[in-house]
């Protein structure tokens, strides 16, 4: 099969061919490296390409040839968001302040990828320290949306989503603090999953907001996400917030869902507050069509109200900056990373200040200042304290909504991809992009974004968000895979089959 065909396989299909011996990991890895080389100048998904990928792939091939028993994704290439520590590649979190820093250890999820014998291709671009919804806040230049190179790929994980949509990787890891996996998924026509808080280890994921961050899969299909989740998930003693319980197989759940084709008896809750005003018309239309498809397949559509979701963004933009202001204090030049000495030298405080002044971009500074203010004596109760109360109310809203519905649905983003630069000077407009995704982070529940079709007015992808109660990730994979199959049947094709050619001869 041609290299062009190889890169268009889903990860599950590729894994099958590797297992069957129809394709080697070296061939697949080489096909992706060639693709990266061809389109990277236009997309800029990657910050670093691994020099070891082919060697790693060759080792998998020889072990497979020697009859070693390998995991289901062994030999499948993967892209890793640059927020995750890798001891063989620089890890910058998209920031100047960490330029060239190579961690002395692997994040737990990266160690698990390696143990499962996946092949790391490189590190993907992101908004600096995952602060942003467009990847324009990367210190290393924006990533472009493969659907339209003048548009943003979402953020903060725009690099991972664009790499998937541009066929530069079959799988990617992302991190989601307020939508950084799901919103890029929506605007690039890919699948993104934010697991239950505590479902995937945060050890080695450079923290943005510790109580909100989760690492998760970015893929082309729900089954691919489930296969990857099975590899990275589960308890990690190095992360105290990781859940000690055993998890069911998510891949089994996804396969069950895809096979059933039916949503009989599934109660699908439409969250009233996550739609209507402020949502692009084509997004709303696609959402309505998705609901019709689900209803036809037997789902019982119910409207639910989550009144406190209205306050989610306000609470989020207090909790996140507060935690981030503290998490980012360690970037002081003393032990690692960039160091700027002011002219004529200075005290250690002068060096810290000069380093942070030059090393951090404007969005990071904005949030550090916000967070420092929100935690200050005399303001704590009014800001951070109140935000935590809102968080509790949102958790209650979820609890009562899940009494009426098995899954909740909404558009995954209010609009399709906007133009580069369009919202860069208007932080509030940028923040509103995460209006639908933030509640899941505040409550710790899992959320998934799957392609919902192209918006009629601009031909760009839209995303459907599905949410389930905490620890019910398997339910999302099962229902998600069913809906994915039903929607593709209704369109007669997958969304990514419509992504425009990026290079000559591309089909």
């Amino acid at each position: 099969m041609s290299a062009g065909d190889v890169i268009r396989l889903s990860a599950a299909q590729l894994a099958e061919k590797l297992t069957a011996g129809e394709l080697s990991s070296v061939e697949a890895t080489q096909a992706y490296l060639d693709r990266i080389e061809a389109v990277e100048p236009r997309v800029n998904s990657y910050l670093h390409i691994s020099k070891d990928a082919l060697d790693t792939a060759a080792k998998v091939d020889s072990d497979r040839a020697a009859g070693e028993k390998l995991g289901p994704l062994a030999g499948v290439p993967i892209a890793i968001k640059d927020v995750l520590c890798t001891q063989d590649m620089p890890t910058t979190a998209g920031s100047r302040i960490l330029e060239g820093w190579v961690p002395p250890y692997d994040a737990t999820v990266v160690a698990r990828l390696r143990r499962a014998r996946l092949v790391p291709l490189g590190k993907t671009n992101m908004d600096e320290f995952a602060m942003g919804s467009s990847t324009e806040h990367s210190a290393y230049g924006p990533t472009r949306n493969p659907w339209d190179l003048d548009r943003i790929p979402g953020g903060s994980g725009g690099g991972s989503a664009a790499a998937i949509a541009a066929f530069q990787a079959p799988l990617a890891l992302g991190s989601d603090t307020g939508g950084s996996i799901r919103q890029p998924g929506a605007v690039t026509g890919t699948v993104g999953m934010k697991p239950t808080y505590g479902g995937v280890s945060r050890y080695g994921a450079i923290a943005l907001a510790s109580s909100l961050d989760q690492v998760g899969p970015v893929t082309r299909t729900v089954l691919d996400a489930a296969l990857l989740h099975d590899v990275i998930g589960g308890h990690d003693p190095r992360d105290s917030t990781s859940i000690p319980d055993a998890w069911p197989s998510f891949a089994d759940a996804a396969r069950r869902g895809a096979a059933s084709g039916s949503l009989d008896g599934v109660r699908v809750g439409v969250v009233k507050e996550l739609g209507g005003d402020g949502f692009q018309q084509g997004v709303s239309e696609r959402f309505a069509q998705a609901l019709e498809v689900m209803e036809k397949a037997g789902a019982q559509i119910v409207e639910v109200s989550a009144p406190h979701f209205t306050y989610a963004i306000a609470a989020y933009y207090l909790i996140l900056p507060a935690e981030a202001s503290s998490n980012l204090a360690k970037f002081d030049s003393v032990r690692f990373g960039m160091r700027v000495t002011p002219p004529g030298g200075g005290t250690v405080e002068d060096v810290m200040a000069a380093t942070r002044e030059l090393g951090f971009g404007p969005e990071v500074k904005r949030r550090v200042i916000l967070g420092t203010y929100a935690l200050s004596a005399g303001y704590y109760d009014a800001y951070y304290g109140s935000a935590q109360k809102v968080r509790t109310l949102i958790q209650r809203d979820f609890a009562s909504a899940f009494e009426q519905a098995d899954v909740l649905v909404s558009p995954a983003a209010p609009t399709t991809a906007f133009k580069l630069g369009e919202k860069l000077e208007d932080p509030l407009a940028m923040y509103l992009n995460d209006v639908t995704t933030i509640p899941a982070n505040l409550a710790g529940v899992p959320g998934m974004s799957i392609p919902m079709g192209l918006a009629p007015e601009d031909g760009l992808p839209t995303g459907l968000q599905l949410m389930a109660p905490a620890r019910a990730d398997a339910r999302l994979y099962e229902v998600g895979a069913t809906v994915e199959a039903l929607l593709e049947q209704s369109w007669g094709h997958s969304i990514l089959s419509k992504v425009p050619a990026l290079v000559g001869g591309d089909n």
Partner: protein
Amino acid sequence: MAKPELMDFDKAIELFEPVLGFEVHVELSTKTKMFSDAPNPANDDGHGAEPNTLITPVDLGLPGSLPVVNGQAVRYSISLGLALGCSIAPSSRFARKNYFYPDLAKNYQISQYDEPIAFEGSVEVELEDGRLVQVPIERAHMEEDAGKLTHVGGATGRIQGAEYSLVDYNRAGVPLVEIVTKPIFGAEADAPQLAKAYVSTIRDIVRALGISDARMERGNLRCDANVSLRPRGQEKLGTRTETKNVNSLRSVERAVRYEIQRQAAILAAGGTIIQETRHWHEDTGRTSPGRPKSDADDYRYFPEPDLLPVEPSLDLIEELRAALPESPALMRRRLKTDWGFSDVDFQAIVNAGLLVEVSETVAAGAAPQAARKWWMGELSRTANERGVDASTLATPQQVAELVALVDAGTLTDRLARQVLEGVIAGEGSPEEIVEARGLAVVSDDGALIAAIDEALAAQPDVLAKIRDGKVQAAGAVIGAVMKAMRGSADAARVRELILERAQQ
């Protein structure tokens, strides 16, 4: 630094009432650190390690690293809380204390703020005259230690004027319990003594619990002493200062006395006390101002999101309560009876802060009188000369070993003193020193007889006197023999042999 004026202590107490408060930090001797699996330098295994060798990504605060609570540290903290008579919180929480300093790897310290693990307790402290004072405990909370800065260049070794500074993160993340008292009223002229007795009691408690090496000279136990004065008859508390760097029981007492005298002089002259941290200087016996401190210091505390609340089960708490050793007060009463010392002798040991040393020496096999003799004699004398605590000079095990060597006849008292010098100089265990210095009593009669015969031959007139039955004349020969043996002989045996040899 101009020498500040001090008021006469008795005069100061006449005019003002001293109010004390203490923050004692105890380094726990757990196997690993508070939040990482790095070895803990606050136990004997880790002590003295090369800089920056006992570290993990967590201790360096590397991006992506996360803390995990050390269960042993939690159990130690609960035991300590119980020994302080505190209630143990069914749920307590860690919080981040945010401030920038290069010895603080993350630029925040993980501590406990509004939800400490232990709160509301009381410690009985005994003054020199045997009077018992209850010191009220506000709270005891868990936190991590910071790294250690060494300032290079500049005259003072302090950060001002230094060319550069080195950071050793071995200490970063060492488990600490901070014990905070409520304001202590009514100590009056005994305030300095109470300060010493309080810290000494805390030291005894943590050592009896076996949760800390509690060696002040190593920083295992650190005391910040808060002192304020209020004019007699005034209700409102005066402004307090917080004196740091008091690294021995002696200096706790001296520092509190000094602050009372210094503040009294300022207040009497119509001045005001600045709320500040002050630094104690052991050499000059003074305090100097550190950084100004105010209640407005904003550490932006918030609950540590990387950690879950600490929720010990009732079973665990009760198990630890049942395992508590007797309190220092009870222990004092028991030991006094067991040892049969006079009131004066026993109180002297307590006042010297050596009760635990003596009792551990007895536990290691020494007779109580012998243990008392060495600690209160030779060791206390040397400690006074050097201005240190006697406990820093030798361990109870070493003293017990020394006593055993004397009991076995291997050492005379005089030789034992030389061996103890070696112990104090860090030359090793008593047995090693006996070996290395060749100090054992010569019990080989052959060597003694040769020396005696030689001495008798050299003094024929003395020999004649002995043969005439003037036994006391043997004294001159004993002296000569002991000199020839360089003291390593048992004088009684020498005398016996002289009388024997003289008759041949």
